[in-house]
C-alpha cells in the first residue's frame, strides 16, 4: 500500500497553482497528480516522494488534506496489461472506485494506482495473479 495525498479544492482560478507552489517550496517532488472535478469543487490526488512533509506543508498553508492508502501496481508494458489486472479484481467482485496511471522516473514501467473497497483482499488477489504490487519503498524513499 502506498500513501496518496488528497486535497479538497474549490474550483477557482489559481487554487491548483497555489497548491503546487506550496509543494515546490517544501521541496516535495511529485510522481503523479490527478484532478477529479465537479461543477463546484475539485479533489486533487497526489503521489509524491515525501507524503508526510507534503501533508504538513499543505496543512500549514491552510489546505484541507487527507492521506489515503491506495494500491499501486506495476502494469506490464503490453496490450491488455491493464485489462488483465482489472479482470482479476472484477472476477472476485472487487469494485474499483477510481484509478489513474503514471510512468516511473526511469520510464521503463507504467504504474497504475487503484482505490478499491477491500485493499487487503485485492492485494492478495493480484499477487496470486502474478502482478507486482508496489510498497512505499518502490514509490518513495524509506523514512520520508
Amino acid at each position, binding site marked *: 500500500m502506498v500513501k496518496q495525498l488528497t486535497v*479538497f*479544492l*474549490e474550483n477557482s482560478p489559481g487554487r491548483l497553482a497555489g497548491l503546487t507552489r506550496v509543494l515546490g517550496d517544501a521541496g516535495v517532488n511529485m510522481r503523479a497528480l490527478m484532478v477529479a472535478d*465537479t461543477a*463546484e469543487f475539485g*479533489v486533487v490526488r497526489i503521489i509524491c516522494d515525501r507524503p508526510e512533509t507534503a501533508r504538513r506543508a499543505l496543512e500549514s498553508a*491552510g489546505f484541507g488534506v487527507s492521506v489515503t492508502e491506495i494500491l499501486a501496481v506495476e502494469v506490464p508494458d503490453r496490450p491488455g496489461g491493464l485489462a488483465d489486472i482489472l479482470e482479476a479484481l472484477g472476477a472476485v467482485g472487487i469494485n474499483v472506485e477510481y484509478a489513474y496511471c503514471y510512468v516511473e522516473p526511469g520510464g521503463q514501467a507504467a504504474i497504475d494506482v487503484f*482505490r478499491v473497497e477491500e485493499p487487503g483482499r485485492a492485494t492478495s488477489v493480484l499477487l496470486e495473479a502474478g502482478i507486482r504490487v508496489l510498497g512505499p519503498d518502490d514509490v518513495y524513499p524509506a523514512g520520508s
Partner: protein
Amino acid sequence: MFQPEYEAMERPELEALQLERLNSLLARVYENVPLYRTKFDGAGVRPKVASLGELADLPFTVKDDLRSAYPYGMFAVPLRDIVRVHSSSGTTGQITVVGYTKGDIERWADMMARTIACAGGSADDIVQVTYGYGLFTGGLGVHYGSERLGCVTIPISGGNTKRQVQVMKDFGTTILACTPSYAILIAETAAEMGIDPRSLPLKAGIFGAEPWSDNMRRQIEEMLDITAIDIYGLSEVLGPGVASECACQCGLHVNEDHFIIEIVDPATLQPVPDGERGEVVFTTLTKEGIPVIRYRTRDISRLIPGQCACGRTFRRMERVTGRTDDMLIIRGVNVFPSQIEQVLAGIPGVAPHYQVVLSKRGSMDHVEVHVEVGPDVPFDEIKTLERLRGRVAAEIASALAVSIAVKLVEPKSIQRSEGKARRVLDTRGEGGA
C-alpha cells in the same frame, strides 16, 4: 426557588397581576415621559388596556428612541429618585443611558437571586462575579443578586485569567458568572497552570451576554465538570436577570411578574403564533427609572409551549439564536442564519462554519450556503462529498421550508471572527460574478 409565590404563581393570577401592573405603567409613562405621550397620541391610543391582548395595539419602542433621548430624556422619575445609572456598550451606535430607582435595584436583586437559585445556588454558595463591573450592567447586576441570595460574593470583575483560576481554587468558588467564551478560556488557563479544571470546586456557571450554542455548553460542562445555565438580559430592559434557564436546561424562564414578553414577525411586526420564531419584544411592568413599552430587542427567539418540569409557571423563551439584523427573506420565507447553523450542528462531516452568499444571476437573486468540509471527512471520494452536500441541502430544506443551494468549500476558508461572525455576504451590488 427564591420567590415561589411569584415564580410558581397560577397563570390566571399572574395574568391578572400583569394587567394591573400594565395599566399602572401606561398611566405613569403617559404622564411622565413626553416621548410616550407623543407616540400614544400619534397612534390614537389611550394609555389604558382592557386585556393583555390589547398591548399589541400600542406603539413599539426602539433603540433609536433611547438614543435620541440621550441621556435622561426617557426617565419616568425626577433625577432625585434615581440612585444609579448604567450604560449600554455602544458597539452599534451612540451609547444609551438607563437609570434605576432604589425600588428598581431591589427588584433587580430579587430577579438575579432567582437566576442564581435557578442554577441550583443558595446561601451556601460562593459566587465569583467575572462579568465586568462598571457602566456595563453585568457585574453589579449579578453582584446584588448574589448578595440577596446570601452567597459569598467575590467581586473580581473581568480580566487576569490566571488570578481568576487561583481565586477560584483558593476561595472555593462554587458558581461562576461570566461569558461562555471566557469560561472556556478559564478552563484552558487552569490546565496550562497545571490545575485540572475538573478538580475545581465549581458546580455551576451562569453564562450570558453573548450568543452561544448547545455544543459550546456541552464543551464547557465537560471541561469544568459543571452545569452551565444560559441567562438573558439587556440593559434597556433591566440587565442580567430578565430570563434564566433552570436546571432542566430547556428554555429560559422569563420573569413575567416584571415583564411581558411578545414575539413578533420582524417584517410585519404582527405577533406570531405561539412557538414560532420572531423578534423578542419586552414591556417592563415594574421598572420606575426608565420603563419601556414594547421594546424591540432585535433578538430572535420563540416561546416554548408547555409547562416546565421545575414547577415554575413563567413561560420560557428559547436561547436567543440570532439578531433581526441578520434576517433574510428567501422566496417569501423568513430565514435566520442561526437556523442553518442548527442544521449544520447535527450533521457529522461539516464544520459549523458557514456563510450565506447572496448574488445576482441575471435579474434573479441567487442564494447559496457555503459550508466548510470538516477536517475528518474522508473526502478522497467524490461520491462521499456529493452525498454530504445532498444531505446538507435536504436537511436545510426540511428545517427552513425553503430550498437553498449548497456549496462545499475548503476547510478554514470562511473567515473567522473574534466577535460577531459575519454570516451573510451580499455581493448583489458588486456587478459581475
